[in-house]
């Protein structure tokens, strides 16, 4: 570990204007608004709506990864990959688990 790692990380890097953050932020807002408006205005049937929302959500995940989390930067320690894998694993488990748990509400209604 170098000496640089030991100094305390503080804000105040004077870099260029963070365009990618601003663009990513706007994209995220737009995607969220589109989803909301589609539901409020009932633009499609239930199944279709669900599909489109899931699609928008997936796109948003990628926006987070590319615009905020520097996924394209190749160098970096191995735990970057591990963390990402763990996160995906948990996300999958949580969504699949919830769907599985909640199926009974369909059966009973």
């Amino acid at each position: 570990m170098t000496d640089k790692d030991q100094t305390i990380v503080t804000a105040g890097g004077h870099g260029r204007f963070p365009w990618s953050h601003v663009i990513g932020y706007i994209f995220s807002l737009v995607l969220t608004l589109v989803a909301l408006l589609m539901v409020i205005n009932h633009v499609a049937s239930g199944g279709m709506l669900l599909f489109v929302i899931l699609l928008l959500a997936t796109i948003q995940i990628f926006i987070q990864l590319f615009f905020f989390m520097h996924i394209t930067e190749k160098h970096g320690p191995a735990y970057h990959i591990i963390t990402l894998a763990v996160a995906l694993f948990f996300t999958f488990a949580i969504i699949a688990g919830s769907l599985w748990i909640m199926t009974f509400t369909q059966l009973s209604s």
Partner: protein
Amino acid sequence: MGGVKQFLSHFFVTGPFEIGGDVSIGLVSLAILFVLTRYKLWGWLWRNWLTSVDHKKIGIMYMLAALLMLFRGGVDALMIRTQLALPNSQFLGAEHYDQIFTTHGTIMILFMAMPFIFAMMNIVVPLQLGARDVAFPYLNAISFWLFFFGAMLLNISFVIGGSPDAGWVNYPPLAELQFSPGPGDNFYLLSILISGIGSVATGINFLVTILKMRAPGMSLMKMPMFSWAVFATCIDIIFAFPALTIALGLEFADRILGAHFFTLNGGGNPMMYVNLFWMWGHPEVYIVILPAFGIYSEVVATFSRKRLFGYTAMVTSLLLIAIASYFVWLHHFFTMGAGADVNTFFAIASMFIAIPTGVKIFNWLFTMFRGRIRMTIPMMWVIAFIPNFVIGGSTGVMLAAAPADYQYHNSYFLVAHFHQVLIGGVVYGMLAGMYYWWPKMFGFILEERFAKWGFWLFNIGFYVCFMPQYPLGLMGMTRRMYTYPAGLGWSSLNMISTVGAFVMGIGFIFIVLNIVSSIRHPVKDTTGDPWDARTLEWSLPSPAPHYNFARIPVIDSRDQWWEMKQKGMTKPDDSTPLAPIHMPKNSGKPFIMGVLFFIAGFGFVFNWYVLAGLGLLGVVITLFARSFDYDTDYYIPVDEVKHSEAAFGRS
């Protein structure tokens, strides 16, 4: 005029307990104001504490807040037990009773256990790693103030607006507007949403600290066990807290924006809330127990004068527990009726967690085996924890048997289970940590006489209070009932339980007396290593200087300080020249941001959107102001470091 009067009588809750609360809050605030003004301490308070970004000071503030909340939650508990001591009691009344068990649970988990673990993490982790602060000191201060003002928001609900009363889990539909009108439930939502932001930030902060700021030579497998435990905790915090934020955020939308995520009409599904809540709720119980496991590991090794038995197994089981705790959440609602296949999966997953937990218990026992054990106060808490956790873990496995849980669920059996693991596991662990690291925080040791009284009273009181609740549960007494008729055979067990609760209360008073008397007659820790301990924090003087390490140590073994002492060293190597030390500057903005979040939260609670908007606007402005702050850090010159090291008798 009448309108104002009516408003005020709604705004300020009136009743004997609330007026008592008003009076005591008023008196305490006046006393604090008086002392601060009389002794001209405002500037000192602001410069040394409120604006501090020093992890040790933030840790101490977390600890004080946690002890205060332990007191408040404890008073709630005594009121609950007083109400239940006799059948048909009218001491509290149903409405009050509901409010008190709700605030008791919420405070104890979110505003006592959480800050207590954050206290220990803050105070210890950078010192153990050989770092000068956490990775993001400024963010750390923000976390603290968000926690603090979130906790304040919940606490004022008792006297202003009315307390939440839908339980600490706040299930809809009961918690929805239709059944819980008024501001009470909003206090619950806003206070946890605000402090939750701080908790996630703390998780990220310590994960980065552990991954990036270890002293040179300290590979992960040379890291002290407490830091490993914090690492596992951080994984849980980062991945579990978002689920809580979503659950409460959607409930907030239901209550404040008129949405229908969890309502019964309008297409909502309350069961989804239950699902999301426990997706956080179960990892949360491990978030609070894992740091305690870490503390037990440190204390046991130090006071057995042996290295920790089974280091690798300990690390593996920590990580296994952290991961597995995501796959068991449904065991909190087996009875919802998701079906046999779902219940079976989650039952088996839950029972699996008992295996790594058992491994850890055996490792602690083997560490003690043939060690030269010293019965100090921290060690006494550790030894008392073990039987507690064995019973609590076993009843946990009983609860995890899904068909049997239909009998135990929401009975006093469950109440006894989780108090056994939360008090016997988390609170004992935090107290052990407090006694153990106290000299490192303040430079003096807590005296033993009152500490022993406190220990024995608390411990005996614990068993007297909670053992009767297992049979009570099996006899059919359900949780959250405010009274019960005579003649069910519950009366004497309930009375015994109440007596035990008061014995614990007296034990707590002794612990406070212990602290007070030690402050008045301090036994100074002059060496910095009063326990003859093993890890790096004990190589520093007590209390540690604000830059922690004058020179960053180079690590070559797990129990670094112990190994150095074996080589005959009495202080860290000081032959290399000193260099200026890079440190973060204090800042008032985290505190101000906390106040603004409080204002916004308060506005939302009462649906005063202008106030809420102003508060949020203030938060955004503070964020902007910080972005343009370029003067955030400084160097301590070598001369100053020399000077302060010399004051500790070092060079």
